[in-house]
Each structure stands twice: as C-alpha cells, then as structure tokens.
C-alpha cells in the first residue's frame, strides 16, 4: 500500500505545514485504500484553511495516519464504497455545505445551518421549526406498522427520535434521528476564552466529563507544550476508570431492571452512587467535573484519600462480584440476554463500532492498549472480546471491565501519589498547529482534534464521542428483533445523545 498519509502520535503537536496536502483524487483513493486494509476512521471533517475549506482525515491502523486535501464543492462520496464514512460525510455536508455525490443516505445529522451561509444541502430553512420535519425511511406493505418514539422519552433520559418499521412485533428497520440536543459546542470552542475550555469540555457529555476533559486537556498540553507529572497522570487514570465503573455498574443494573429482575437493578443503582461518591471525594463533583485541567489535576490524592478510597473499594468489590454473579447465573436473565440483538463481527467492522459495543462483537480494539495515554502504558490488563455480539456479550464485556477497572484503581492506590496541583494559567497555543488526542472513554474511542491559526487562535475544534460510531450499531441490533426488546438493547449500548449532537 503506497500512501502519503503521515504517521502521528496520540497527543503530539503537528505543525500544520507538515500535514500532507494531497490532490482530492489521491486523498480519496488513499483513504479508501487504508480502510480497505482494515483501517478505521478517527476523524474526517472539514475546516476553513488559509485559502479555502480543507477536508482532513485522521485514520487509524496500527498508527494514527493524517492527510488533508482541498474540499471540492461536490465530490464522489466515499460512503458509496465504504460504509465507515457514512456519518462523517453527512456531518461534513451539514457543517460546511459540501455535497458527497452518490451518498446512499444523505440526511441531516443535527439540524443546523452550515458554517458558510451556503444553501442547505438538505433544503431546510432553519428559521422554521425543523426537527422531526423529515421523511423517515418507510417500509411499505399492508401488514407494516410504524412506531414513533421521542424526542421526549418516558424515562429521565435525553431526547432523540426513534422510528420503528415493524411487521407484527418484529422490527424490520429502526431509524434513529438525533440532533435535538445540539448546543453548538464545537463553535463555542472557537471564540471561548481559554478559561472556559474545561467547563465546555466537561459539558459535552456529563456522564463522560472526565473522558472529554482529558481529551481537551491533552490537546491543549500538546499545543502549549505543558508537561504533566506522574502523579497527575495516575489521578487522571483513576478518574477515568471510576467514570467507567460507575456507568457500567449503573447500566448492568438497568439491564437487570429491563428484564424484570429487580434485586441487581436496585443494588447496582446504589453501588453506582458509591462510585460517583468516590469521584465526589476526590474532586468535589460526582461526575468528576473540576478534576482535570490542562497541565494536570486540581486535586491531590493524599495518603488519607488513598486510605478512604481503598477501604471503600475493599467493601464494594465483593458486593459487586456477588451481584454480577447473581445477574449472570439467573436463568431468566440469561434467556433474555442471550441471542438478543446480535450484531455480527463483520457488521460491526463495517459500521466501525468501538468500545464495549465493538468488543462485544469480537473487535478487541481498546485505546488504552492501542494508543495509551496517561498511566495506561504501565498497566497490564487483558483484551476484552466476546464474539457473540448480543446483549449478553455487551453486558459481559462491561461486567469484566468493571472488575478490571477496580483492580487497576486498587493497584494505583497502593503507592503514594505526589502531584503539584495546577491552577488556571495564561496558556498560549502554538500557532498553525494540530493535535489529536484519543482516549478510551467508557463508551469507547473518544477523540478531540484541535487546530490553530497563524496567531495561535483556535481555528477548528473537532469533537468525536464514541456514540457517533455506535448509534448505527443499535439500529443494526434491532433488525429482526422483537420491538419489546428495544429497551434492553438500548441499555446494553447506552449511547450519548448530547455527545453525538454536540
């Protein structure tokens, strides 16, 4: 494979003049080549360059690969040849008004006008009330019926619209249309004072506050050339793992509740809170907001803190083990989990599923092992991959990760941790540069890409939540599944609406 894409490192500052600027045709064919050989897409987005809009791609094989090209106003869609580009090309069309010709399913991502005041690709006038005003994919036939759910859902959860095409109880097709949560986050990053960046990053998805603020902090550290100390890297690792445990434990409980087995539902609900309370103990916020800042962390882990957290873990660990044991040994639970909502490994590969959703379909990719940041180089934990691709696999991967993460935190707490806590400083970003940061959030691959202009001002801030890859996995899981199993499948993914909608 002959490629002009260059290899870059996770969290490395790259001068923008080092980015290979290819002719569009070369860019297209080489990008397709890389993904045809097993590569995946970390980022593919448009940004305003010095003399026109550029398309920039960051792909991953064993390395991160980077190249860009001038964006044509219209171009032959890459999605037509490879499904992995599907969401990215829709996003580019929506954000910059660039048309991917022959895209098989060109529709809105988040319902907002484009950056360049060009006519809307989808023919929308955003002065009108647009969301929901859209022709859903329909299946025709006398026996076919549709079920529409959302944007306001029955539970205390975020909004989004789900449209089921069913024959009897069987779902033929589920279309998921989001965008209701769009807050214009990427745009806010452009003009925000540097002091606002952590607050914005923590608000991208509140259940992933540590993950997203870590991506932001690492990008700023790369471009401002700030080093973090070992203690800070350990505390950040603990913060990210606590976030993972709390969310996985909560979801295991919710899964149990969805199959009407209430004991684990209640126990997990309570124990999730105990893990959130550990984050509260460390940084004063249950979601880890306020912990991570460019340059390190704001709070130390004193010997007293280590003692308290170690004691709490020692108390919780057997309880978690026993509840997980109860959940997975109960026949009524197993019979609902097993074989439900299967996404095969080839389908998961084509959709580019990441995180536990990918691992449950046999794709072992984990940023913590493949592109480690913070303290992960020094940690050893097994690859989690379950081949069956069903609700059982998604629950199992998460349960295994809970126990691994507890072991990781226990080992990190066993030695004194010294760090110099950081205060907000006057941070100057390197001009005309790029940094991409990738971390394994609890839902999977999180990535931020920060580009600066010639004055060191933020030129483009691109955010990618793993949900951007995985929502189509949920739609795929529902194919030929009973509609009453939707809540169960939905919880097994538990994807982010606001992380997707930005």
């Amino acid at each position, binding site marked *: 494979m002959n490629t002009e894409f260059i290899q870059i490192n996770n969290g490395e500052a790259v001068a923008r003049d080092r980015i290979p600027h290819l002719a569009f045709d070369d860019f297209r064919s080489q990008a397709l080549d890389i993904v045809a050989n097993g590569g995946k897409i970390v980022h593919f987005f448009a940004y305003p360059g010095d003399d026109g809009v550029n398309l920039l791609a960051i792909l991953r094989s064993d390395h991160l690969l980077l190249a860009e090209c001038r964006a044509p106003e219209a171009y032959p869609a890459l999605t037509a040849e490879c499904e992995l580009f599907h969401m990215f090309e829709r996003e580019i069309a929506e954000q910059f008004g660039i048309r991917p010709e022959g895209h098989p399913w060109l529709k809105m991502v*988040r319902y*907002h006008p484009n950056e360049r005041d060009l006519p809307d690709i989808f023919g929308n006038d955003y002065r009108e*009330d647009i*969301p929901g005003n859209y022709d859903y994919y329909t299946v025709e036939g006398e026996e076919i019926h549709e079920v529409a759910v959302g944007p*306001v859902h*029955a539970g*205390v*959860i*975020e*909004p989004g619209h789900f449209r089921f095409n069913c024959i009897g109880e069987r779902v033929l097709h589920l279309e998921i249309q989001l*965008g*209701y*949560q*769009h*807050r*214009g*986050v990427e*745009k*806010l990053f452009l*003009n925000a*004072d540097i*002091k606002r960046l*952590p*607050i*914005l990053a923590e*608000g*991208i*998805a*509140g*259940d992933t*506050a540590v993950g997203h603020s870590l991506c932001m902090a690492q990008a700023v550290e790369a471009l401002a050339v700030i080093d973090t100390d070992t203690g800070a890297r350990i505390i950040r690792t603990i913060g990210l793992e606590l976030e993972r445990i709390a969310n996985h434990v*909560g979801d295991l409980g919710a899964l149990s509740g969805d199959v009407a087995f209430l*004991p*684990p539902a*209640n*126990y997990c*609900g*309570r124990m*999730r*809170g105990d893990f959130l309370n550990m984050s*509260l103990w*460390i*940084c*004063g*916020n*249950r*979601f880890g*907001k*306020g912990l991570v800042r460019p340059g390190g962390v*704001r*709070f130390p882990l004193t010997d007293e803190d280590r003692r308290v957290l170690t004691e709490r873990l020692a108390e919780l660990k*057997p*309880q978690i083990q*026993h509840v997980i*044991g*109860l959940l997975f040994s109960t026949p009524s639970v197993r019979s609902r989990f097993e074989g439900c909502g299967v996404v095969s490994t080839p389908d998961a590969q084509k959709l580019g599923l990441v995180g536990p959703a990918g691992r449950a379909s046999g794709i072992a990719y984990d940023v913590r092992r493949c592109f480690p940041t913070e303290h992960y180089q020094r940690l050893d934990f097994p690859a989690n991959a379950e081949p069956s691709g069903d609700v059982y696999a998604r629950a199992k991967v998460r349960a295994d990760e809970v126990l691994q993460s507890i072991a990781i935190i226990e080992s990190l707490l066993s030695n004194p941790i010294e760090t110099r806590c950081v*205060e907000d400083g006057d941070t100057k970003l390197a001009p005309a540069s790029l940094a991409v940061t990738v971390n394994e959030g609890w839902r999977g691959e999180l990535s931020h890409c920060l580009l600066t202009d010639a004055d060191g001002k933020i030129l483009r801030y691109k955010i990618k939540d793993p949900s951007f890859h995985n929502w189509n996995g949920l739609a795929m899981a529902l194919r030929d599944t009973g509609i009453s199993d939707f809540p169960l499948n939905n919880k097994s993914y538990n994807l982010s*609406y*606001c992380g997707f*909608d930005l």
Partner: protein
Amino acid sequence: MLNTLKNRFEQGHRTSAYPKTPIKLPARYRGLPQVRAQASSELAAECAAACPQEAIDAGRRLIDLGRCVFCGTCERLSESRFVSFSQNFELAVAAKDHLLTGGELPSLAEHAKKHFKKLFGRSLQLRQVSAAGCNACEADLNVLATPFFDLARFGINFVASPRHADGIVVTGPVSRNMKTALLQTYEATPAPKVVIAVGSCALSGGPFRGSAEITEGLDKLLPVDLYIPGCPPHPLTNLHALLTYFK
C-alpha cells in the same frame, strides 16, 4: 434463590435517614458559596475576571448561582479570602433574583407558594424533560429513585406522561431543536402545574451561554417556580428543594 437471598442480606438497608437526620458531604464538595465582604476590591476583581462563567459581580460582592458551575476557581485563586464554598447543599430558591447571593439564601419554605403545598404536599407527580442537558443533571435526578434516596417514600414520583404529571422538571439549556417539544410537553401537562428548572444550563444557559443554538434561561420561555442551581445539583440539593418547597 439462595444466591438472591445471600445478596439481599449482604446489601442490607441503605436508605438515608435524611431529612430527619442531617447528612454531611465530603470536604471537597462545593456547596453554597460564602463571599467575604471585607476582601479587597483588587482580589474581587481578579476573581471575577478568572471566573469561567462570569458569575461574579465584584462591585456588589455577589455570586450568581444561576451561572455558577461550582468549579471552585474563585476559591482557589483567592485562597478562600474572597469566596469559599461551604458544605451546605441547600441551594434552591423560588425567585430568579434570589440566585444572586453573598452567602445567604432566602428561606425556600417561606417563599413556596402555599397553594402548591396544599395541592401537591401529599402527592407530586413530575414529568422530566431533558432539553439539551448533558446527562449529568438527568442522572442525578434519576438516582432519587435508587434505594439510598427513595423519593417515592415522600409521595413524589417521576412519571412517563405529562398527562399524568403535576408539573415538569426541565434540565439543559433548551436547544433550539428541543424548544417545541418542551413547550408541547408543558402544554400537555394539566393545570395547575409547576415548572422546576434544574442545573446551571436551565437557569442561565450554563457552560453554553453565548451559543445561538440555546436559550439562556428557561424563565425566558416558561414561568419557573423553583430554581435548583448546580452543575449538576447534588441529588440531596434536588431532594431538599422538592421536600422544602412542596411539603
């Protein structure tokens, strides 16, 4: 069966005795901020300039709890000489101008609407609407149903339909794309009804203020009865607000 019983015994009884017995949050929790009126005006101005949320009025020595995300920047910068955050999680107020505070909040119980207590004091059914919330506020409302908080023992429940609700609880900065759905949910709730705004986003736009895609404050769209500050508010802040305002 034995396994189920074993787990039941191991889990024990976990429900909090709050509000009968006071509860203490960890030392690093940042609750109601206390502003020192005697701090120098230079220090106050410095803190106001450093505040990522522009929530500090340095001249009047007040903090806008609607904007504040309780990040603690001002406390660290002033080494508690201008602002210090207390452990007091009782933050809710009944009027927007009460959010501007130097450290004392008006009594919520006294400002509660009396007819609400009469109508909803024994049974309060609420419909939650996330209008571009980041899922932190939503999650910490959801936990009120877990055994530790056990909201239902007070006769308060979150229900699935606005038709069954006595009011709505709104989180998030009300994105342009959620505005219609939110207003329709409000319309679908039978009167008399209450509107509760939870979290910095619903109070002021929060971290997202300045975006053309959001509304800076739910009160611009609906008559808000109860304001609960925080990013997100601690579950006890929510619990205190509901019990004090309606009981």
